[in-house]
């Protein structure tokens, strides 16, 4: 069938760019390899030109795909799958990287940007480093090819036309129209990703991922050239830039989870979260080993191990999230696109390459026979790196259960107490790390006098002990490990502040690392206090006794709020005022009140948690949080009846005479008498109205009698209407519809509704104290890292 209006040219252009990127990627890798192997400069130049062509290809692809999404060419599978006409323009970037293909392109794009900056400053390391870089790009580009090689589909192409990707669609009526493109709409973006954090978190995270490539490429180049130490100096700034940006990217993910997801917190030890944290931990270890390497020249094995691992673990994280292997163990992962094999090969290639090179060169590493002194900075930096390695291993091992199951046929699964399990291991490690951060700065290279050290540290130790004691008392913390961690993280903050003021005397040029460490200490402190002291104020405090369900039943985190009822949650009186529908959002108005001096309830703030309606992908509830300087109040709708309850109101019409009885569902009522001159007060009647009242005695289920009097009104002698009367407790309302003079009967309309039904929400409310310490720490850590990188670059 011939279609009209398909934009086929742009897809061809996209594929052309893809082909350029792939072909020149291979050419660049090969040329650089030969250049290093034969030490020929013209090959190096060829490699460089090829890499530039490859860069044009990658940037061209990005621009093409973006143009397709922007112009809503739904005839393309990727655009159709991730976008729709109703999607607000501000989420257009999120569409770009929602899918696997787009996220690969984002990753490649950053590699290209970084590699081109690198080419400007690289000097004599170009050939071996760029061989590695270009080879990585070849693997990544191959993920987008979407061609079949002997039955095996290589990659998934982002420029595929919808009807090509789904040949079965041709039979659908919409594709019988030649101009189907004018009516076709996309499937839309996952509602969870329709959040501003999703516009900045992925590119930041991927820039962090990409930055691990540079130390990796240099490390491989160093091993290749047998120059085991020369590669460290040009790598340092990149590594610390990577530490800063990856750290921010991870915390942005946490901020997104905290703002938009329902689990109530910024970190849940989810496999996908772990998969990005672990490479960061390793990169931090590698960066610090690089620092001591510059001073003393040992522990090369650990340095090479950590540097190569940080990039390999990024690849592993890409494998975990994109192969679909995490399947039902994570909420964030992609679905399988049949690329598991290809992803595994790319990962294994670099694992084998690194392992073989390190093993091969090991004997050759320069050895230092003198052991580090225990009171030396290098010793404790090395210890810190080892502890980070242990921490990373512990997290990654448990995260890898699905992979272990696949390889060994086991059926391991993470316990439901995932958070407790990870905390049990990570808390002691974090205590040691924060202590090392505290005193590490005061240690000198080679040897320090312990007496002098303790004298310098005494102020920070005493101060942090005092603040920790006050904090423990204020929050009534009894867990000794938590108190110890509060102490050590405070010590990390204060000791580094002390170092910044007394030793560096506030000079910014040398202050980067102490500022970064202050920030890190604050992140630890904020994370610890906000999570360990978080208070679920919606815990079931109502009449309902949950203990009858068994002693281990303590999952009572949600509370039911009837509309207009007020409940005491923590120190707030909380009232659910009602809901409002606004486009695809249903907002629930939850009012938090406190008693004022006169003892009256006064609204302190109002929160609007909402549900995003999405009939195709499922409705998504998003929390709403009130931020104070010292705490946050998080409120989340866990359950609400979204569909309007079936109109349970039933009408019945009755035509009766005096003395007759109307039978309702739960009531009956007798027409006792008529009143030609009913009371006009409060019934909205004017003096000129003619009104007839019908006096009923209504009996409810308990046979209580109620008197009601609906009115029949003739206004201005022109038109008539009824003023109904009701008994709300019974759920009955009756209106007087008319008079039939001939039959001498009277018409009534009875409305009955379920009196017990009231609108309600089930919600969860949590107070997170001091969570701003975490975010402030994050900003300080980033600034400190960038400051350190900036001054390192300036020195050059």
């Amino acid at each position, binding site marked *: 069938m011939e279609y009209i209006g398909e934009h086929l040219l742009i897809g061809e252009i996209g594929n052309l760019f893809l082909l350029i990127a792939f072909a020149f990627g291979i050419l660049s890798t090969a040329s650089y390899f030969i250049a290093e192997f034969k030490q020929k400069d013209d090959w190096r130049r060829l490699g460089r030109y090829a890499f530039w062509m490859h860069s044009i290809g990658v940037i061209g692809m990005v621009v093409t795909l973006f143009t397709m999404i922007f112009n809503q060419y739904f005839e393309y599978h990727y655009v159709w799958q991730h976008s729709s*006409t109703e999607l607000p323009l501000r989420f257009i970037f999120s569409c770009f990287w929602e899918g696997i293909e787009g996220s690969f392109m984002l990753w490649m794009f950053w590699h290209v940007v970084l590699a081109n900056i690198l080419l400007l400053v690289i000097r004599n390391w170009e050939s071996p480093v760029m061989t590695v870089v270009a080879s990585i790009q070849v693997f990544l580009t191959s993920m987008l090819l979407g061609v079949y090689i002997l039955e095996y589909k290589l990659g998934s192409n982002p420029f595929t036309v919808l009807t090509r990707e789904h040949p079965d669609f041709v039979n*659908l009526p919409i*594709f019988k129209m030649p101009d189907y493109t004018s009516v076709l709409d996309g499937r839309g973006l996952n509602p969870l990703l329709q959040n501003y954090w999703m516009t900045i978190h992925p590119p930041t995270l991927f820039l962090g991922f990409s930055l691990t490539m540079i130390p990796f490429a240099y490390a491989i180049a160093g091993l290749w050239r047998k120059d085991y130490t020369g590669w460290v100096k040009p790598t340092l700034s990149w590594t610390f830039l990577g530490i800063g940006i990856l750290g921010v990217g991870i915390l942005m993910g946490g901020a997104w989870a905290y703002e938009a997801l329902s689990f109530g917190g910024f970190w849940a030890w989810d496999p996908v979260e772990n998969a990005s944290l672990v490479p960061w931990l390793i990169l931090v270890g590698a960066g610090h080993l690089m620092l001591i390497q510059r001073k003393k020249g040992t522990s090369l094995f650990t340095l090479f191990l950590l540097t190569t691992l940080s990039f390999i673990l990024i690849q592993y994280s890409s494998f975990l999230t994109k192969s679909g292997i995490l399947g039902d163990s994570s*909420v964030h992962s992609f679905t399988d696109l049949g690329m598991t094999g290809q992803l595994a090969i790319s990962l294994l290639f670099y694992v084998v390459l690194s392992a073989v090179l390190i093993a091969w060169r090991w004997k050759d590493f320069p050895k230092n026979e003198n052991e580090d002194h225990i009171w030396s900075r290098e010793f404790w930096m090395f210890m810190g790196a*080892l502890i980070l390695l*242990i921490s990373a*291993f512990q997290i990654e091992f448990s995260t890898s259960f699905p992979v272990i199951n696949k390889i060994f046929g086991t059926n391991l*699964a993470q316990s*439901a107490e995932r958070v407790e399990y990870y905390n049990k291991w990570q808390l002691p490690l974090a205590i040691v790390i924060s202590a090392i951060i505290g005193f590490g700065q005061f240690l000198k290279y080679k040897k320090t006098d312990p007496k002098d050290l303790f004298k310098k540290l005494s102020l920070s130790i005493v101060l942090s002990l005092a603040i920790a004691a006050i904090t423990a008392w204020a929050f009534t913390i009894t867990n000794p490990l938590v108190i110890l961690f509060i102490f050590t993280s405070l010590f990390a903050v204060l000791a580094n502040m002390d170092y910044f003021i007394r030793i560096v005397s506030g000079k910014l040029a040398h202050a980067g690392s102490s500022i970064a460490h202050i920030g890190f200490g604050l992140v630890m402190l904020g994370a610890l206090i906000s999570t360990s002291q978080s208070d679920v104020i919606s815990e079931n405090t109502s009449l309902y006794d949950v203990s009858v369900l068994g002693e281990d039943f303590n999952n009572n985190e949600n509370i039911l709020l009837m509309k207009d009822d007020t409940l005491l949650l923590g120190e707030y009186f909380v009232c659910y005022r009602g809901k409002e529908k606004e486009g695809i959002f249903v907002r629930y108005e939850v009012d938090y009140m406190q008693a004022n001096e006169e003892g009256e309830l006064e609204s302190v703030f109002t929160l609007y948690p909402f549900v995003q309606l999405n009939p195709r992908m499922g409705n998504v509830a998003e929390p709403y949080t009130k931020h104070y300087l010292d705490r946050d109040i998080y409120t989340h709708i866990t*359950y609400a009846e979204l569909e309007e309850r079936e109109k349970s109101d039933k009408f019945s019409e009755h035509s009766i005479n005096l003395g007759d009885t109307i039978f309702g569902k739960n009531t009956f009522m007798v027409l006792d008498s008529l009143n030609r001159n009913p009371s006009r007060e409060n019934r909205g009647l004017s003096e000129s109205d003619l009104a007839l009242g019908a006096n009923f005695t209504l009996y409810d289920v308990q046979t209580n009698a109620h008197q009601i009097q609906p009115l029949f009104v003739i206004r201005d002698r022109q038109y008539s209407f009824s003023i109904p009367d009701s008994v709300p407790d019974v759920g009955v309302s009756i209106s007087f519809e008319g008079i039939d003079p001939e039959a001498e009967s009277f018409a009534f309309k009875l409305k009955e509704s379920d009196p017990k039904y009231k609108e309600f929400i089930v919600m969860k409310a949590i107070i997170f104290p001091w969570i701003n310490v975490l975010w402030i720490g994050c900003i300080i850590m980033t600034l400190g890292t960038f400051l350190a990188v900036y001054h390192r670059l300036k020195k050059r």
Partner: protein
Amino acid sequence: MKKTHIIIVVVIAVLIGAMIGAISDSSSYADFEEAFENPESEFHVVGQLVKEKEMIYDPVSNPDLFTFWLRDINGVEKQVLLHKSKPQDFERSEQIVLIGNAKDQVFEANEILMKCPSKYTDGEVQSKESASI
């Protein structure tokens, strides 16, 4: 023995400890038969919602209890007490993973993971008037 060696030994010991700890603290996937044979241990049970059988969520009496029936991969159906509020779009779930343990005749779940028909399931095409074709 040198300090370095002691450190290496300690690190390796901790790494092995972490592995053993991870495995001993782990739960495992099982079907209902195995879960009900070992009521004391925690399992992950994969299955599907039995749509024909009753689902009870009465938030007025307890917002943290939701009862439904799950059919495991072998077709065994058991009643489940989920100690959470009823998840949004529960009826749409294609696959459910429960984490919990058996108690008498019911499975008590503390955690639930659902797989809903995602954006990746194809076969439905939308036109701009947002009617399914």
